[in-house]
């Protein structure tokens, strides 16, 4: 900081009146540049700047009388900031904002359809997701939408699933999402059965035999925690088909019950199912399931296991089949069996041994 004082203006003058400033505070001036006009007795005189620099302060106002030697201007030698331009103003950078969170991954590919097609689908009440696309690049065209609309009107109104059907859909979906199914199948030669044998009871006993031989199939598997729980008591789920849908009530503790008791239990169960009076509790807790679908038809099947179970045994239609006995081709009654198991918790060997044990039990005369 340096101060410029009013210089001696000559002719013995001691002071002058300040007439007008020619610079403003903040201005950069160069040496010899007129700073101010002051009036002396004789004239108005311009006072030039003694130095180059920035005018920090003007020390007097127009109209004031300033004595020779009194402060006129204060200069500071500070640098002017670089504006970085010759025109306009450049704003300085602001601190950058925190990085935005990663965007959520895109959902499944949406249906490709032009807007007019979408509008048409909406008008006709057609869900684009179910429309087969015949347009370029897999796009749904308006013809596709119209075709789907026609098909829907032919097909009758959509009925939302409810009750037992809905429960089946839910359970099967869940099973499909969790279970890793594998199926091993075989046939039992039941030629030796006495007449009047109760197929269902025999099958129940076969399941017991299998579980006794391979306890690992009477178990619950928790996929999330990867824990398997072997269960001592066999609570057998019995698939029962009704007009209302599929029910799988539980026959408790089949391993400890005699045939007559089992038969009574099964009859009671069927009655209750038909009458829709099965308590909810009796629809839960199956440790393994049996489905005798052969009553209706079909021989082998890969059935669906409802978690947390790990196995389901399916029995197909009993029918004569060709077997080789004592070196000769003969017709024996055969009972097809399909054992579907959850390969996360059960090995193929375990499944095969279960089936073998079940078949051995079934092939006994009684």
């Amino acid at each position: 900081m340096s101060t410029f004082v009013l210089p001696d203006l000559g002719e013995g003058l001691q002071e002058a009146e300040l007439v007008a400033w020619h610079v403003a505070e903040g201005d950069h001036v160069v040496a010899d540049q007129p700073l101010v006009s002051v009036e002396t007795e004789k004239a108005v005189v311009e006072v030039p700047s003694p130095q180059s620099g920035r005018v920090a302060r003007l020390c007097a106002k127009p109209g004031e009388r300033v004595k020779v030697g009194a402060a006129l201007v204060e200069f500071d030698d500070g640098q002017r900031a670089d504006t970085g331009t010759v025109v306009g103003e450049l704003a300085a950078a602001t601190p950058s904002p925190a990085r935005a969170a990663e965007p959520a991954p895109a959902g499944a590919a949406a249906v490709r359809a032009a807007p007019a097609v979408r509008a048409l689908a909406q008008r006709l009440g057609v869900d684009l997701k179910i429309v087969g696309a015949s347009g370029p690049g897999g796009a749904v065209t308006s013809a596709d939408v119209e075709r789907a609309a026609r098909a829907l009107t032919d097909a009758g109104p959509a009925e939302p699933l409810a009750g037992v059907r809905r429960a089946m859909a839910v359970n099967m979906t869940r099973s499909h999402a969790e279970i890793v199914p594998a199926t091993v199948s075989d046939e039992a030669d039941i030629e030796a059965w006495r007449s009047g044998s109760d197929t269902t009871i025999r099958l129940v006993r076969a399941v017991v035999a299998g579980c006794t031989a391979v306890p690992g199939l009477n178990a619950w598997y928790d996929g999330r925690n990867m824990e398997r729980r072997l269960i001592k008591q066999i609570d057998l789920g019995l698939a029962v088909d009704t007009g209302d849908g599929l029910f799988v009530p539980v026959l408790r503790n089949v391993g400890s019950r005699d045939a007559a008791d089992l038969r009574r239990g099964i009859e009671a169960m069927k009655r209750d199912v038909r009458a829709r009076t099965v308590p909810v509790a009796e629809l839960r807790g199956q440790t393994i399931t049996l489905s005798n679908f052969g009553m209706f038809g079909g021989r082998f099947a890969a059935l669906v296991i409802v978690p947390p179970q790990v196995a389901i045994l399916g029995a197909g239609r009993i029918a004569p089949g060709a077997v080789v006995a004592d070196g000769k081709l003969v017709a024996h009654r055969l009972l097809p069996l399909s054992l579907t198991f959850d390969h996360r918790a059960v090995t193929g060997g375990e499944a095969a041994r279960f089936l073998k044990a079940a078949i051995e039990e079934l092939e006994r005369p009684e």
Partner: protein
Amino acid sequence: MSEITLVQAVNLALQRAMAEDANVLVLGEDVAAEGGVFRATDGLLKRFGPERVLDTPLAENAIAGLSVGLAAQGFRPVAEIQFTGFIYPAIDQLVNHASRLRTRTRGRLTCPMVVRSPSGGGIRAIEHHSESPEAMFAHIPGLRVVIPSSPARAYGLLLAAIRDPDPVVFLEPTRLYRAAREEVEDDGAALPLDRCFVPREGTDITLVTWGAMIKETLAAAETLAAEGVSAEVIDVATLKPLDTDSLLESVAKTGRCVIVHEAPLTGGFGAEIAARIAERGLVSLLAPIERVGGWDTVMPLPRLEQSYLPNEARILAAVRRVLAYQ
């Protein structure tokens, strides 16, 4: 009323405009005694004299710039730029001055000037004589960009451009100068600016184009008609300000749109049209909007010219792709 060519229609409009308004001047290189290298200004010197028809020195920037000065003084200069390949130096005067003079003086000074220039290829010309720069001009606020596609439209639109109180860039399709002929009535009637024309109505697809491409587009429409496809052809004519309403009306009817222009595809004016239709007409669309344009390359020398210019086959291919969305 006899049949005249497009360039003769331009001449007719200039004659008419100069006769009815003493402030209309024609200036440019070789416009006076030569009558213009394409004869667009033929006969004007003889009829109106050297103070209405001025040969300028070779300076496109100055031609446009002095037109600004003349226009600010109340004249209506119609400046010819000999070929659009040479128009680029004039863009400075058009962007920085002609298009801004009214607004930056709040209407105190205005710029009623026209810059007209032969535009487009297909005339087997040497380099730089086949440009289609309309998108560059259309991007400039305050300008009008007009492209006639026929003798009648050249006549009516040029009259409108000259009478307009604001600057107009008038790009004449060189290829149609002599190739397009029709009857034009010299009645001094201007055609409306800022409005599309519909030379062919249809219901199945909208074909949007301007300038010389009208020829190939109409031919494609004929071919399609024989196949049972009814194409509507729209001649944009005034690219800026754009008549969006007419375009949307057509697309609402047909649901399909193909835009055809000779200029290179990327950043071409078809992109602006496609964007506006997508913004406001999306729910009418049955299929994507397609553009058929020149390749994003320099216009090749004459031997390869036909491989560059969009032709009927390319237009039809685009149409078929769009029609596949049935």
